[in-house]
């Protein structure tokens, strides 16, 4: 059940250039949290009315906290980054459908790019099968050590070559001749499109987590749609990223 509440911020600090970690305390949210789901954060400043959707990076039900990792991109995330510990924040969530963890009993390939990396951490923690993780960054990787705790292998790519493979994750994936039964991925659209094609070519099932600008976050306003089609169906329709997604199966998403 979705919650509309005020949660206390216990941590909010920079963990990599422009990347922040926010930990919020809420029993309800920690109980309802699920990998791939997200929360709406509200700025409540009179100027920025719309929520900022941020994925759940980690859940600790025992400590009753959610860990969120976000990039400072525009005015809203800038404001988020200036919020202080012990402040309360208006949160709506968990929202969306999340990944199908049950599909991950075989060999899993998890592919993340940039700010698409954080939502995959809780997933990797919960996946039963063997899991190889591919993480791509422009520069300044983050969360890599966290993934190493739970994954079988973690492969790293940076565009500037500062750490790991110089280039993108797709190249790395091909270099490794990676094999597997199930793919989970989150990241920028071009990356997801490439992952989707690679998965199709290798006949591997895949789940992709998309992003879109949102308003309600719960499926009522229809602003956050993406083009989707039932498998093999040419007659596409606009589906709601916030409610039907953010996680879609490989064949559902129609790329432009």
């Amino acid at each position, binding site marked *: *059940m*979705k919650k*509309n509440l005020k949660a206390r911020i216990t941590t909010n600090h920079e963990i990599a250039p422009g990347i922040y970690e926010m930990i919020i305390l809420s029993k309800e949210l920690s109980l309802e949290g699920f990998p791939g789901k997200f929360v709406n954060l*509200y700025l*409540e400043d*009179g*100027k*920025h*009315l*719309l*929520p900022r959707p941020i994925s759940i990076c980690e859940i600790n039900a025992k400590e009753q906290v959610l860990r969120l990792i976000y990039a400072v991109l525009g005015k*809203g995330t800038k404001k988020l980054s200036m919020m202080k510990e012990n402040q309360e924040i*208006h949160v*709506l969530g968990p929202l969306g459908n999340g990944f199908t963890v049950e599909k991950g009993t075989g060999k899993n390939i998890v592919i993340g790019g940039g700010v698409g990396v954080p939502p995959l951490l809780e997933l990797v923690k919960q996946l039963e099968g063997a899991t190889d993780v591919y993480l791509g960054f422009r520069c300044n990787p983050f969360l890599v050590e966290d993934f190493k705790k739970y994954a079988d292998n973690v492969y790293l790519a940076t565009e500037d070559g500062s750490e790991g493979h110089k280039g993108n994750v797709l190249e790395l994936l091909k270099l490794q001749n990676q094999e597997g039964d199930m793919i989970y991925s989150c990241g920028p659209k071009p990356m997801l499109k490439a992952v989707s094609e690679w998965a199709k070519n290798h006949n591997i099932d895949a789940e992709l987590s998309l992003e*879109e*600008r*949102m*308003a*309600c*976050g*719960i*499926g*009522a*306003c*229809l*602003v*956050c*749609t*993406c083009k989707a089609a039932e498998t093999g169906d040419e007659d596409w*329709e*606009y589906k709601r990223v916030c*409610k039907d997604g953010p996680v879609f199966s490989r064949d559902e998403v129609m790329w432009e």
Partner: protein
Amino acid sequence: MMRPSLKVNIGGIELENPIMTASGTFGSGKEYGDFVDLNRLGAVVVKGVSSVAWKGNPTPRVAETHGGMLNSVGLQNPGVEEFIKKDIPFLRGYDTKIIVNIAGKTVEEYCAVAERLSKEDVDMIELNISCPNVKEGGVSFGTNRDMAEYVTREVKKYTKQPLIVKLSPNVTDIVEIAKAAVDGGADALSLINTLTGMAIDIHKRKPILANVVGGLSGPAIKPVAVRMVYQVAQAVKVPIIGMGGIMTGEDAVEFMLAGATAVAVGTANFMNPTATTDILEGIEKYMSQYKIKDIKEIQGSLMI
């Protein structure tokens, strides 16, 4: 003490209270049902429905602006048959009135939806002649006096329920259009729909909305909405449903003082899913503060 009465009457239909949802912001109520008790709403006004399914506009469909937002959904909807099959039974499970917002690209299409719904168990029809997000029809009906009267008169022939006409604020003279709709047979008026606006991403040098322009809603537009409600209330006798940036009970009272019989809550839902019932409670608080026993004492009681 007697509980104050919040009952209002629109086109012969009695609503438990003046709180409605603004079309397109509340779906058919299902999603918000997780947060608010739909039984407490005066009416649920559903997302615009057309005779056949409409896909709507490409994304991005939303842009944030200072104290407001732009949307360019473009009336995506599954068509009237789907709506009848899925949403009416759901909403009839609650003790609230059902108002169906209807859309069309031609007068014939509007009439077709109205006729189809006339046989169904819905309480009122809201004729949207003001959506800025569809190219044909839609807004051109709402910005031309004669077209507004004509489309109202035609649709009125096909509907059995009271007919609300929803007006566009993007006009030189809102009173002229309001009178035209009343002349055409409108039983009530809804105002305002969104103001046409635009936002640009200066880094990408591109409009934020794929559709370039969209409809501005939220508290930013409230002063324009209050003014239009006030002007129209001076000029017509039918009830007015006021909307545009209502965020609090105080905002709702402001619209009623200006002359609205009921109010609709739109963008506020996106910031707070319990906005509708919070606003209802705000009105109740105002009434108890000023010992107002019947909400009708507020309506149009502005002193000039």
